[in-house]
């Protein structure tokens, strides 16, 4: 405030009508705020500009407003109407930013306005605005906790949102406002699991942590049988014969584990840690191991990341030591590590120590990091812990520590003494020579703690060193007045013990020491001296206790347990702040114990049917756009329906094993194709980078395409052209074309090969043992995109081998062409082989006739395609579909009414039957009453559009639009049959 003249000049600039002056003023004000200077007296002048047209001025005003609104509540209210107007803006980004600023203004009086705005935004058609609404919830909650119930309603609504954009933010709001309402998660559990991989990284962390807690309340402990076994071993055998139920993992539990695992590969350390703690807390013992590698990877990150990871590894390594043993070397200590990292690495190494690796670890300890004082202490303590935990090396450790007693550095010596003291307590008889050695040290060592430790040792085991002990007391009595307090206390202690065991030699010394202590400055020491004198020196007044003095002083004391400070720290959720501090932080949610019996799993069941989004105001075009954007990008969309089905069938193990085999199947397939591509591309080396003339088309043709992907291959060119005219939304679909994230993610276009109908080409009898079958593989025929690929399978059931199988003398209709398969040289008896040939049927269902020859015989065969195989799928948007359909009216359109067969009612069945009958792909559609499909004929590329509109009671209308009327007519017949049979 003192610098008001300067502020006047800022005010002037803000009042001017030049944007550049305003901007300059705002920049200076923001710089003041950044430096922590008070700029609150400018509030009225700044807030006037809240509606300024210049976007940067406006933004800086927002910054200012949010910073000072709390202090200037009345004036802040002046700006509210601007934001209220912004909330109604047609542009979603302006709506979002208005809500963001409005909800950041911490002025209690506007709570109702904020509540209303949040409610409205929560049902906004834009997912971005809904995300902003989710962000606003915790803001309002911290401003006015009374609003909790209303806010929970909003959270519930937003939790049901299906977009990845919203998921992370709403779970964040859930965690801040109502983390105890675990019931709100049930219906959204599977969806959250399935969306997870597409959610932005920060949201992933929050969701994973929340789901960990959820899983602990809903599923059974996967390790319960093992844990029980351990317990039972301890119990008597009689009680062990309790019949226990075999453990079966809930498929939802499995879903969570499966969907989080890929995130161990995230670049974000927080995500990796979140998955790691999820596995640690939720996975069966045998599966937890996967996280070790990822955690070890994080250790190569910034030292702060290392610090947190090591804290967690330290806790984990106590419970699951085996997990980190293979990575022992990664915990070796570097002289360049910061001290806190060194100490933590030491902790981990100590936890990992066992009989086999102890020697390596001890060597690691021995290395000279002795310029770092904190670390020295930690190292020596670690050696002590190894010695107590592993009997085999106790003597080695002790010897090593004794050697350290002659170290030049007093600190090393002192720390060693302290640790040796603890070790000796375990077996003092055998080590009187060490005690003697230590007694000698009292002459040199000055560190009080070490001196005290030595004195205690000598006193405690004075019977083992009867000659030396009184001498030590003599020396100590001499220096008593100069000692530190803890040493003085131990001298008194030593004197008392010696008096009790060897009063003849030490009586006078003890009295001398007690007299010195009587006049000490420290009242602790005076008290102690008085107390001990009463206890050990029998007088007439002394009470009953002095009889027991010996028992009191020389009782057998339990050996100290050297324990890791990280033991049992896992009752805190790993990765949390509370775990790191080993103290409950505010807002920490306790990780519950597994339930004894699993709660009802059916609460997570949801209806498969997609509800139509509720925003009805918006135009249809916008609606479509949003829908597309909502589509998960990389995650497998199969998930949504998958687990729901499996949950319906109560047997969990069945569905699990099913999915497992599916995975392994795809794995082996792709490995094959991988090898292929490696060998094929050997010619063009990596140096090729410079050869920019490389022909992209050529590469495409040469590159063998993995089977799963190839369905979309022929469409590449088409979609690239499309791409230029339509932009982003279409591009999304192209994504699917070029790189289906997973074979299953485009279920509309891919018919599992098991469903392909096979036809007989040559019967075993006519073929004299050679039987030939064929099917339309629906793969693109790469040598010629205008041909239909036909997969031919030869089986030799004869006793002798068939040689040189090939095609000859094709008799074809005009225009038809055949691309024969390469000759098969030998087909041994009992073997089967498949080849692919291409046939251009000229968009007709005429048969292709040719001869199939072996080295001895020739067979006349013919292949006749069903009309549905003469086409291939193309991708288009709903808009394009409508546009194209509009152009194929009149004679090109054939409509037929039909009644759907009983089993065929429902969208899924219709889609399946149509795509089985014809090689078409599905076109997205806003209505769930209608299914649309598109394709084009293989030879001429004429469009084929099919739509099936379902009505009540199984009535339906089938429409086919195709330029080629013959094809259209035949297709209607085929699809009609498929839907009604």
């Amino acid at each position, binding site marked *: 405030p003192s610098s008001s003249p300067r502020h006047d000049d800022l005010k002037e600039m803000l009042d001017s009508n030049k944007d550049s002056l305003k901007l300059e003023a705002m920049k200076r004000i923001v710089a003041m705020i950044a430096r922590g200077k008070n700029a609150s007296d400018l509030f009225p002048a700044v807030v006037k500009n809240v509606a300024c047209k*210049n976007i940067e001025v406006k933004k*800086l005003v927002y910054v200012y407003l949010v910073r000072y609104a709390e202090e200037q509540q009345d004036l802040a209210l002046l700006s509210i109407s601007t934001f209220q107007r912004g909330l109604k803006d047609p542009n979603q980004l302006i709506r979002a930013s208005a809500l963001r600023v409005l909800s950041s203004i*911490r002025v209690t009086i506007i709570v109702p306005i904020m509540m209303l705005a949040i409610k409205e935004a929560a049902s906004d058609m834009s997912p971005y605005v809904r995300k902003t609404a989710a962000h606003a919830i915790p803001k309002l909650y911290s401003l006015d906790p009374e609003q909790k119930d209303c806010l929970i309603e909003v959270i519930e609504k937003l939790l049901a949102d299906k977009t990845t954009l919203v998921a992370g933010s709403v779970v964040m709001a859930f965690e801040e406002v109502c983390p105890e309402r675990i019931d709100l998660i049930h219906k959204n559990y599977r969806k959250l699991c399935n969306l997870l991989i597409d959610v932005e990284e*920060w949201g992933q962390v929050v969701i994973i942590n929340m789901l960990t807690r959820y899983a602990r309340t809903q599923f059974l402990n996967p390790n319960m049988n093992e844990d029980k076994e351990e317990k039972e071993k301890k119990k008597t055998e009689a009680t062990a014969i309790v019949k226990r139920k075999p453990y079966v993992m809930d498929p939802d539990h499995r879903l969570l584990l499966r969907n989080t695992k890929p995130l161990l590969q995230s*670049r974000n350390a927080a995500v990796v840690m979140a998955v790691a703690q999820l596995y640690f807390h939720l996975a069966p013992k045998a599966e937890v191991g996967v996280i070790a590698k990822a955690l070890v990877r994080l250790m190569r990150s910034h030292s702060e990341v290392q610090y*947190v990871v090591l804290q967690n590894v330290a806790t984990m390594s106590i419970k699951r030591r085996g997990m980190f043993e293979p990575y022992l070397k990664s915990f070796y200590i570097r*002289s360049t590590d910061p001290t806190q990292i060194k100490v933590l690495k030491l902790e981990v190494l100590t936890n990992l120590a066992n009989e086999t690796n102890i020697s390596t670890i001890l060597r690691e300890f021995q290395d000279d990091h002795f310029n770092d004082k904190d670390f020295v202490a930690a190292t020596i303590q670690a050696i002590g812990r190894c010695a107590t935990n592993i009997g085999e090396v106790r003597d080695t450790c002790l010897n090593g520590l004794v050697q350290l007693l002659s170290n030049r550095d007093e600190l090393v010596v002192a720390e060693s003494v302290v640790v040796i003291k603890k070790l000796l307590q375990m077996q003092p008889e055998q080590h009187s020579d060490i005690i003697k050695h230590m007694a000698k040290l009292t002459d040199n060592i000055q560190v009080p703690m070490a001196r005290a430790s030595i004195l205690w040792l000598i006193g405690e085991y004075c019977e083992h060193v009867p000659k030396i002990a009184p001498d030590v007391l003599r020396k100590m009595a001499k220096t008593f007045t100069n000692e530190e307090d803890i040493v003085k206390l131990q001298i008194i202690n030593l004197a008392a013990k010696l008096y009790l065991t060897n009063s003849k030699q030490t009586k006078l010394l003890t009295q001398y020491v007690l007299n010195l202590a009587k006049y000490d400055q420290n009242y602790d020491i005076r008290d102690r001296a008085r107390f001990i004198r009463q206890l050990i020196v029998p007088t007439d007044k002394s009470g009953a206790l002095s009889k027991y003095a010996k028992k009191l002083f020389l009782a057998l004391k339990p050996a100290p347990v050297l324990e890791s400070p990280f033991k049992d720290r896992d009752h805190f959720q790993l990765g949390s702040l509370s775990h790191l501090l080993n103290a409950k932080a505010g807002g920490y949610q306790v990780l519950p114990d597994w339930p004894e019996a699993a709660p009802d799993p059916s609460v997570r069941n949801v209806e498969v049917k997609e509800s139509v989004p509720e925003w009805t105001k918006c135009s249809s075009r916008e609606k479509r756009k949003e829908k597309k954007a909502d589509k998960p990008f990389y995650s497998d969309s199969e998930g949504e329906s998958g687990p729901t089905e499996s949950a319906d069938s109560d047997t969990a193990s069945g569905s699990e094993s099913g999915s497992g085999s599916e995975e392994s199947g795809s794995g082996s397939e792709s490995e094959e*194709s991988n090898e292929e591509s490696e060998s094929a591309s050997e010619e063009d080396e*990596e140096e090729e980078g410079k050869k920019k003339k490389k022909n992209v088309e050529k590469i495409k043709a040469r590159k063998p395409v993995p089977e799963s992907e190839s369905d979309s291959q022929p469409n590449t060119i088409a979609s690239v052209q499309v791409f230029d005219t339509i932009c*982003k939304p279409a591009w999304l679909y192209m994504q699917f074309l070029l790189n289906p994230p997973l074979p299953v993610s485009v279920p509309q276009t891919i018919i599992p090969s098991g469903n392909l109908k096979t036809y007989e080409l040559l019967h075993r009898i006519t073929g004299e043992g050679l039987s030939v079958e064929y099917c339309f593989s629906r793969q693109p025929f790469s040598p010629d995109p205008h041909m239909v690929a036909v997969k031919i399978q030869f089986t030799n059931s004869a006793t002798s081998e068939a040689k040189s199988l090939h095609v000859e003398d094709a008799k074809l209709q005009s225009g038809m062409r055949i691309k024969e398969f390469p000759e098969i040289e030998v087909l041994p008896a009992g073997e089967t082989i498949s080849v692919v040939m291409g046939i251009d049927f000229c968009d007709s269902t005429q048969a292709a006739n040719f001869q199939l020859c072996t080295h001895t015989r020739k067979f006349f065969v013919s292949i006749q395609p069903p009309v549905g195989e003469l086409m291939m799928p193309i991708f288009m948007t709903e808009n394009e579909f409508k546009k194209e359909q509009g152009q194929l009216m009149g004679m090109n359109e054939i409509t037929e009414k039909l009644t759907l067969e009983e089993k065929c009612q429902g969208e899924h069945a219709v889609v399946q039957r149509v795509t089985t009958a014809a090689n078409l792909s599905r076109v997205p559609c806003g209505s769930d009453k209608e299914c649309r499909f598109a394709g084009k004929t293989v030879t001429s590329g004429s469009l084929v559009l099919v739509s099936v509109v379902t009505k009540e009671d199984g009535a339906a209308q089938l429409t086919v639009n195709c330029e080629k009327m013959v094809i259209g007519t035949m297709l209607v017949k085929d699809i009609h049959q498929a839907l009604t049979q």
Partner: protein
Amino acid sequence: MIHSLFLVNSSGDIFLEKHWKSVVSRSVCDYFFEAQERASEPENVPPVIPTPHHYLISVLRHRIYFVAVIQSEVPPLFVIEFLHRVVDTFQDYFGVCTEAAIKDNVVVVYELLEEMLDNGFPLATESNILKELIKPPTILRTVVNTITGSTNVGEQLPTGQLSVVPWRRTGVKYTNNEAYFDVVEEIDAIIDKSGSTITAEIQGVIDACVKLTGMPDLTLSFMNPRLLDDVSFHPCVRFKRWEAERILSFIPPDGNFRLLSYHVSCQNLVAIPVYVKHNITFREGSSQGRFELTLGPKQTMGKGLEAVLISSQLPRGVLNTNLNPSQGTYNFDPVTKLLSWDVGKINPQKLPSLKGSMSLQAGASKPDENPTINIQFKIQQSALSGLKVNRLDMYGEKYKPFKGIKYMTKAGKFQTKGLLRGRAWDLKN
């Protein structure tokens, strides 16, 4: 989550503060300063410090502490990772992340921080989205802005946040379409005095600079993908595809980004490219010590060692050194006792050496510390693990991009330890 952020320089001054919720007084940093005073080295300040009402979580980068103030439970890594992301963003925007750069661009810094967190929860951390919102300052733009009064804030509303590929801006256009990939490997090793490897591991990254028009879809395949033991990806990489086919398939962000970091484990034998022989002797009772150090290439696959730099912390008793390098320059700081020798390039025909004497403190006992020797070096055009990119293909766009791949190896934490191992603790006895 994150309440406030304070930037503290090495002399302990708060030079920037930002609050996302109610203002937290900067006196909360006193707890941090206490810890800072207690720490012997700047990096020894604990990253998490509890105070009566708050928790301070800090990272140290470029000699600036970024101190975040937290009020309730939050995963510490969440905050740490975010703070590092902030530093990366600053570096990306200003080229360097120094106190001066931050002070010069304080308005941009504030605008960035405003966008990166909303109510303490990360909102936009992707560099591509941020650049759409706030344009990075360039000299030209600064000049133009001062003259015309135009702004750094993007005029268009950002669409990136709405996209399913938030890491890529829309409407990217280049006249020259280029994609460069740098495979950079760092070898971390601890070698004992006899030259045998105690641990060695390679960590690599593939940094990309992609300037391609439109929405290209790239695939990158390796000759030997099985080498990669453990990988982490930029979110753009399709994980399923990698799992199934070991091919990197992705729509790249625009500009510079880290595509992949990987690890080649110590289980595989790692070729050590350099050896160091050193002999440091002190005679009892004498105030002189001898120092001898030679180094040479070991397994470098025919590529030369460059930018070699040796550094070592000599024992406390050493007063000064009088050494003679066969090449390069050496430097000994008598205060910190740090010896550093800038060797430069190693010529295999004439191995570099550093020989001479050290003077010791008079009367001091013989230093028994065997110093650790740290080595830095570079090897161009070679990735030590042998990783090779097989090919890079582009789909989704019609033009032909210019593609380039570069390899480099660097020393990470590469040190030779002084002690011969396993003497004092020999367990066989």
